[in-house]
């Protein structure tokens, strides 16, 4: 690693971490969560970067070098579909296989009658989440894995061996990718892992959204108990993930999908979603780790709840939440990131992008505590010239 590149890395890390802690760096950091956009820019299809992680890594490094971002994710596409195929997972549609080669991978939520967890199985999850996942959930979401008591097949054995080995291979490669981003591009990692709120896990991977919302009306105590049962495991996972970032510089991201009004009622947010997520966040923060609230959709109705958290314990990502209200309620305690609409990056002009960036910097970054980014992960519809405009404008206008 050259001294120049390491100096650049340290300069960017300092800039990024200062902003994350709601401080005032030398300028506003640019930290795009760039997913399939990197394929567009580097000349790959979605299939190539989703199936072959080396191409994804290569595309990320090309973007990091060419755009001079202050931080990025080693592979924001994240789901390596060869791994999910090795396990026989049913709930992904892979580019170039089930969907076109130029479409981002899709998550397939099963219909309510075919949910990955049945309503009568809450007690088993609550009693022993890890055993439930191995014995009931995994066989149900895999085409190959057999449940205890079923005849063990060759494909079952292969799914477990290949799944475990490919996961080790992938996470090892991600570590090497971060090392190459540092040595070759001078780019720090944007996040230290990805998790979800307890109730989002129940919706996304267990009961499905329709199943969860029915359960909230009919068996809310079970939903609460299951969310509580997940809390210590999520805290443990977050702290374990931080092993890749021993100095705990960067936050663990929480994908917050459907826990806000109107996906759920305010009373369910107040009674279940928020108390259990809050326990996880406070547990993580007690280990010195920040959380990035990747708040997809509009969370304006819940900003006052988030303001209860300890100062600097989270970073709030703006998608469709009201930017003015977000800055007013959260801006004094927490760093804010994002806010450039993805539709603007896809269909707007460079001047419109620059105008939006100016608006966000003027609003959210008067005294630091803001990182420039799109509202949501940048997929293959973001135009390179608009991403360039967002980056270059911030580097110039965002100086303090």
């Amino acid at each position, binding site marked *: 690693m050259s001294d120049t590149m390491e100096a650049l890395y340290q300069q960017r890390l300092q800039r990024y971490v200062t902003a994350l802690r709601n401080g005032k760096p030398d300028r506003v950091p640019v930290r795009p969560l760039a997913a399939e956009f990197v394929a567009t820019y580097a000349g790959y299809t979605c299939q190539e970067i989703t199936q072959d992680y080396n191409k994804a890594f290569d595309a990320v490094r090309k973007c990091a070098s060419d755009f001079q971002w202050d931080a990025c994710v080693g592979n924001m596409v994240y789901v390596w579909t060869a791994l999910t195929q090795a396990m026989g997972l049913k709930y992904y549609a892979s580019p170039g296989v089930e969907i076109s080669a130029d479409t981002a991978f899709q998550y397939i939520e099963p219909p309510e009658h075919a949910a990955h967890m049945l309503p009568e199985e809450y007690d088993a999850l609550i009693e022993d989440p890890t055993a439930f996942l191995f014995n009931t959930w995994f066989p149900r979401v895999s085409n190959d894995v057999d449940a205890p008591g079923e005849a063990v097949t060759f494909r079952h054995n292969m799914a477990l061996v290949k799944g475990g080995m490919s*996961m080790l291979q992938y996470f090892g490669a991600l570590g090497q990718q971060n090392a190459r981003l540092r040595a070759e591009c001078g780019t720090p990692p944007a996040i230290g892992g990805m998790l979800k709120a307890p109730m989002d896990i129940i919706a996304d991977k267990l009961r499905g959204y329709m199943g969860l919302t029915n359960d909230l009306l009919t068996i809310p105590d079970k939903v609460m108990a299951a969310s509580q049962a997940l809390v210590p495991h999520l805290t443990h996972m977050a702290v374990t993930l931080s092993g890749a970032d021993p100095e705990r510089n960067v936050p663990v991201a929480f994908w917050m999908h459907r826990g806000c009004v109107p996906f759920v009622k305010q009373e369910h947010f107040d009674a279940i979603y928020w108390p259990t997520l809050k326990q996880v966040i406070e547990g993580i923060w007690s280990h010195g780790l920040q959380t990035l609230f990747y708040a997809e959709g509009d969370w304006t109705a819940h900003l006052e709840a988030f303001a209860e958290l300890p100062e600097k314990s989270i970073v709030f990502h703006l998608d469709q939440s009201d930017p003015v209200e977000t800055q007013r309620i959260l801006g004094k305690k927490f760093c804010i990131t994002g806010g450039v609409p993805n539709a603007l990056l896809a269909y707007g002009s460079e001047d419109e992008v620059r105008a939006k960036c100016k608006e966000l910097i003027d609003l959210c970054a008067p005294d630091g505590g803001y990182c420039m980014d799109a509202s949501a992960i940048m997929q293959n519809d973001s135009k390179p010239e608009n991403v360039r405009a967002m980056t270059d404008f911030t580097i110039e206008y965002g100086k303090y």
Partner: protein
Amino acid sequence: MSEHTTPSSSPAANRAPGVCVPWEEKRQEFPKIMGDEAIVKRTWEENDQLAYLFIWHCLLSF
């Protein structure tokens, strides 16, 4: 099928985060450990944690 292949019916219900098959359960399979039990325990727990990470990553990351 032996008992220790069906975790939900094992004595380890309510197993702690980071644990699939607790050392205390595994230890009962060895009548006597001739050498340093702490080494066996530590390496068991380190490998056991990998299985835990595998299933929780399946749920959370993939």
